[in-house]
């Protein structure tokens, strides 16, 4: 079952600018929220602060009510086990085969024997519809869509409570992107986990979310059910969703 994820007053300053200026988000267990927003508005920084890859200047990241921002590296370990992450470019390890990538956590963190880890990796490959014939090849030999599937398999193999997706459909053709979206919805439902995604891709955002929130100038400026996106009543959301250059948001060119 998914965990409750709450960001409270999250602030982060980079190069003299408040990239996050008090971000508040609360995602109920088993719900999927997509964070949208223009480039440079702090979506990736939000994700990095939540995952502990970047330390926020202030604010809290609460996982099932426990603030994880102040934890030491070793104390953070059990919390990281609740997380699964699909990176934008896949971030598969070049030096390992596809199955070793997928089973990385099992082998190197959980101490599972290689034989069993391989079996579980191949089973997970089947679940994300990645043919087992690719188990022994290097990630560089996979297409973009296959790399995303392998990345997704790696993220879900340990049955996480919270899944994070960073631009899951970037760089994919529309058909492959839609297949990845279907897979994300299926896996999130199957695992019953909580999901936080960031994306620019509106068809993807609509498909994989229960709720959508918009980040602008380091703050959440709107949040609502996915079904209410087109009637948000927020000029910034409206401009972003319809991809118009004119409006309250200045295009960065």
């Amino acid at each position, binding site marked *: 079952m998914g965990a409750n994820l709450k960001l409270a007053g999250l602030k982060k300053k980079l190069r003299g600018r408040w990239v996050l200026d008090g971000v508040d988000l609360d995602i109920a267990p088993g719900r999927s929220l997509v964070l949208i927003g223009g480039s440079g508005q702090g979506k990736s920084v939000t994700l*990095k602060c939540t*995952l*502990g*890859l970047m330390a926020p200047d202030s604010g809290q990241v609460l996982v099932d009510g426990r603030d994880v921002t102040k934890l030491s*590296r070793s104390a953070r*370990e059990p919390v*990281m*086990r609740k*997380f*699964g*992450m699909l*990176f*934008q*470019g896949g*971030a*598969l*390890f*070049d030096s390992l085969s596809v199955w070793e990538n997928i089973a*990385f*956590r099992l082998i*190197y*963190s959980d101490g599972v024997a290689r034989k069993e880890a391989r079996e579980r990796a191949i089973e997970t490959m089947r679940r994300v519809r990645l043919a087992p014939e690719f188990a022994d090849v290097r990630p560089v030999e996979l297409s973009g869509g296959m790399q995303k599937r392998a990345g997704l398999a*790696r993220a879900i193999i340990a049955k996480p409570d919270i899944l*994070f997706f960073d631009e899951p459909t970037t760089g994919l053709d529309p058909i492959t992107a839609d297949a990845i979206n279907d897979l994300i919805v299926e896996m999130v439902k199957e695992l019953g986990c909580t999901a936080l995604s960031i994306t620019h891709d509106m068809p993807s955002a609509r498909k994989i979310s229960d709720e959508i929130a918009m980040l602008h100038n380091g703050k959440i400026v709107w949040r609502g059910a996915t079904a209410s996106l087109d009637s948000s009543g927020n000029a910034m959301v409206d401009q972003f969703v319809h991809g118009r250059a004119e409006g309250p948001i200045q295009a960065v060119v």
Partner: protein
Amino acid sequence: MNPFAAIGRGTISLFAEIGRFAAFAGRSAAACFMPPFFFGQFLRQCLQIGYFSLPVIGLTAVFIGAALALNIYVGGARFNAESFVPNIVVLGITRELGPVLAGLMLAGRVGAGIAAEIGTMRVTEQVDAMTTLSTDPFKFLIAPRVLAAVLTLPVLVLVADIIGVMGGYLVAVNSLDFNGAAYLRNTFNFVEPQDVILGLVKAAAFGFIIAVMGAYQGYNSSGGALGVGRAATNAVVGAIVLILAVNYLITAFFVE
């Protein structure tokens, strides 16, 4: 522009960088002694850093030994001291040229490789991915490289010592009309265990410097291919400067 402010900024930035590097080196060293240990990674790095460096170390040593014998012969002839060629060759190779040249060659081959590999992993988010998979990159990526470099560099230097002395022997016997048996006898009679030990201590220190500098530059790289290229260059230059400075300090310590 105030020149004093510029000097001050530069000085603060230099000390900040030294502090960051020292903290990184400390964390890397600590990671070598704290579980979990990744023996497979360690063995792979021993092969990569140690075994695959043998040809470059061997070639460097044989030519340096040969050139050293020629130079000492020419210099020694000025005051009728040609017979000291084997003594000075073995002393020069074991105490100084073996470890320093092996260190410099490996700073290029290994240091740049570590920086490029970890740097590429950094800019493609593979290092972040490792963290999200509950694996500490310091223990999985850095500690095996540091341990492998510290342990294999002394072995490489020992090999370089032997090959370097043989380079001097070949030139002395074939070009300078030395008696082969007498050359080797002089060499073994003159060299003392502390000469070899000094070279091995230096080698272990240089191994640490090369691996940590490469890892530091790679781990902190950013900005795509340009950043990775810069990290590799900085790893080589930084390691060379540190190797030469530490070489002097270790030599001075042993001499005193």
